[in-house]
């Protein structure tokens, strides 16, 4: 019986039934353990990784420095105005999700999603303290009050769950401050209150989502199964019960009898192992299902049984419904990982990824923004020349002081001056910007009296780094009567 009522006659609401997934071994389970260790290892320990950026900048490899409005990711340093990189990252992430889905269904759900990873870990803890499926079911079936043995096991389980959840929240805040310092501050109760608050919030959500709600999150809360169902197609591989081979189900003895009589017997012996190991409590043999996170544990379970009874493995495997039908009709199954859909996804991912890489590689470490002052638009000076005022903001994304020389082009005879800056020998004003900051200065552009001027003409203000040679430009206007 699936979690979502499949039959039309049944009630619209089904109250949630506790799922007791059984322990399983096999290649998919092994792979899932390895992915779990890798994912959690990265999550818990990444904040402690150091990355030298010079004396003026933090040396944490991955850091979202909110007070200073900087994001550091290894060799990349992002300023708030560059958050579009995250947009690109999100585009790539969602397209990768689509691509995985087009190739082999809900890879994300089954192996990589934090909900799956943490739930897997929490289930392992539950199994460690309360025993495997049958034992847990028996313990929970006992009348209240539960025996002390069960109680103490449950208490231990919840305690370990809370510890894991607490560590999850603790690791999260380390991404927002220098990790070793924050750990020290947290331990000595000197950390900011926000850090404790976030640890508390994430402890609560991890404990609730991975410990208590589990598959309910995937079935009822998560939008991805709905979107995934709309994005899939006939060639996308899914964890499939090959009913062409499995039906009609019968026991090994019965099958021998039926075969003796010359009839066809299916390979499925109806042992329910696939149901017992399922973390969302469904029966894969009912076909593609919204509740199936495609964790492949039923493949391991079924393969183990098939091995025992000496039948070929792969009764449940990555396959398509169309191939089952094809085999029944006596046709050859079709596998098409390379098709228009997957090619388009790969193409878009490469285009967006390539554009981002190009942008990142050629990214300016200096910036200039110019704003023309509007009250007044222009000033007539005593010698008859015209002057416009501008507010110029220069940004320095490097970890050292940088002197920028300002020049103006576009109007003959135009000269730029900055009252608060010192000019160099060739009369270019020099504005020094401190490391990793911006500086705003007021600048005047003056055009001599004889130069013929329109009401408005385009000018370009250029800032050249005197040391590194980097040049940035901004377009604006010079206004005249």
């Amino acid at each position, binding site marked *: 019986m699936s979690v979502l009522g499949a039959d039309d006659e049944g009630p619209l609401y089904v109250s949630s039934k506790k799922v007791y997934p059984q322990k399983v071994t096999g290649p998919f389970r092994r792979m899932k353990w390895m992915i779990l260790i890798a994912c959690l290892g990265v999550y818990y320990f990444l904040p402690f990784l150091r990355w030298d950026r010079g004396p003026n900048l933090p040396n944490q490899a991955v850091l979202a420095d909110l007070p200073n409005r900087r994001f550091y990711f290894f060799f990349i340093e992002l300023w708030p105005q560059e958050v579009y990189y995250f947009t690109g990252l999100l585009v790539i992430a969602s397209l990768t999700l689509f691509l995985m889905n087009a190739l082999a269904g809900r890879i994300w759900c089954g192996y990589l999603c934090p909900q799956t990873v943490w739930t897997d870990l929490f289930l392992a803890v539950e199994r460690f303290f309360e025993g495997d499926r049958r034992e847990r079911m028996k313990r929970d079936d006992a009348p209240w009050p539960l025996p002390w043995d069960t109680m103490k096991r449950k208490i231990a389980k919840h305690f370990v769950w809370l510890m894991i959840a607490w560590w999850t929240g603790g690791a999260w805040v380390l991404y927002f401050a220098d990790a070793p310092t924050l750990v020290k501050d947290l331990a000595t109760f000197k950390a900011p209150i926000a850090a404790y608050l976030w640890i508390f919030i994430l402890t609560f959500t991890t404990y609730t989502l991975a410990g208590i709600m589990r598959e309910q999150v995937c079935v009822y809360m998560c939008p991805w199964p709905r979107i995934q169902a709309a994005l899939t197609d006939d060639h996308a591989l899914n964890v499939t019960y090959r009913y062409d081979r499995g039906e009609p189900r019968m026991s090994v003895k019965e099958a021998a009898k039926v075969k003796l009589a010359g009839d066809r017997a299916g390979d499925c012996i109806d042992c329910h192992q696939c149901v017992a190991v399922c973390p969302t409590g469904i029966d894969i043999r009912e076909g593609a299902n919204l509740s199936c996170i495609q964790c492949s544990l039923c493949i391991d379970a079924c393969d183990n049984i098939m091995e025992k009874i000496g039948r070929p493995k792969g009764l449940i495997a990555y396959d398509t419904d169309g191939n089952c039908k094809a085999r029944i009709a006596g046709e050859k199954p079709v596998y098409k990982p390379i098709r228009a859909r997957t090619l388009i996804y790969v193409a878009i991912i490469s285009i967006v990824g390539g554009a981002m890489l190009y942008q990142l590689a050629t990214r300016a470490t200096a910036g200039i923004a110019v704003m023309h002052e509007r009250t*007044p638009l222009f000033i007539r*000076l005593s*010698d008859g020349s015209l002057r416009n005022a501008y507010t110029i903001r220069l940004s320095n994304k490097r970890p050292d002081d940088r002197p920028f020389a300002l020049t103006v082009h576009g109007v003959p005879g135009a000269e730029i001056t900055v009252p608060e800056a010192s000019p160099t020998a060739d009369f270019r004003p020099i504005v020094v910007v401190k490391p990793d900051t911006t500086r705003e200065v007021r600048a005047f552009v003056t055009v001599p009296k004889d130069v013929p001027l329109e009401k408005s003409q385009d000018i370009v203000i250029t800032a050249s780094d005197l040391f590194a040679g980097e040049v940035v430009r901004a377009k604006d206007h010079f206004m005249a009567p």
Partner: protein
Amino acid sequence: MSQHAAHEPEKVDAATGQTIRSHEWDGITELNTPLPRWWINIFYATIIWSIGYWIVYPSWPLFSDYARGAFGYASRLEVQADLDGLKAVRAKQAAGLEKASLEDIAKNPDLRRVALAAGRTAFGDNCAPCHGQGGAGAPGYPNLNDDDWLWGGKLADIHLTLENGIRAAGNDKTRMGMMAAFGRDGVLKPDEVRMVSNHVRQLAQLPTEKTYDAAKGAAIFKEHCASCHGEDGKGSLEFGAPNLTDAIWLFGNGIEQIVETVTNGRQGVMPAWTGRLDPITIKALTVYVHSLGGGK
């Protein structure tokens, strides 16, 4: 028609699994769908919680007052505390402005930033009506962005002008300069007024009228104007006499405008701000105005 049948066995609706209430109106029945228990419990909890609110926060109106809450909390007091905090912060900055000299304020980035922010606000409130937003000026009201300063554009000059005004009534230290009404007072005849007005335009290298005679114009200028504006017409900061040779004209450089100036004189007034504004604001305004055009 309503029928009440309390003793019938409970009917269950097939689609929803809910029991059906025993009421029936012309064949229409009602599902028994009570609010979920958890929802009702939260509702009761909020009612109990609200009693805590009555005790802690201001709540019930009384005849001439209101229940002020156990801890005397009021959002108004929070605002007051914020305002007091702001005042304390500003007092520190104001003290910095009060102690430092004008030059130091202009040089020190922190003091300068405070002075510019305060000066900009004060300028908008007090100066912009005549000098325009941003100090762009208007005919008769000097543009504060240019490099032409009638009474000097150094920090000290601007400060003096702000404190005491120009031709400000009732201020002993105000600076006076008199552009006399040569025509109206009969000092010059109308044709002489026109002659000298043409001469002024000639000084500024502007075209003159046909009737203009350079020698006559120069003679009138030397006799009546040069004492303040100088023989070369370059003006004098001492008397606030404008430079007549440059491109900046407070009252316009058309021949009729100059004739009007020479005939009736000009006495623009800048009020004295001592007494109206506190000394710190005047200092901030000085630095702000000086920053507009780079001063002198």
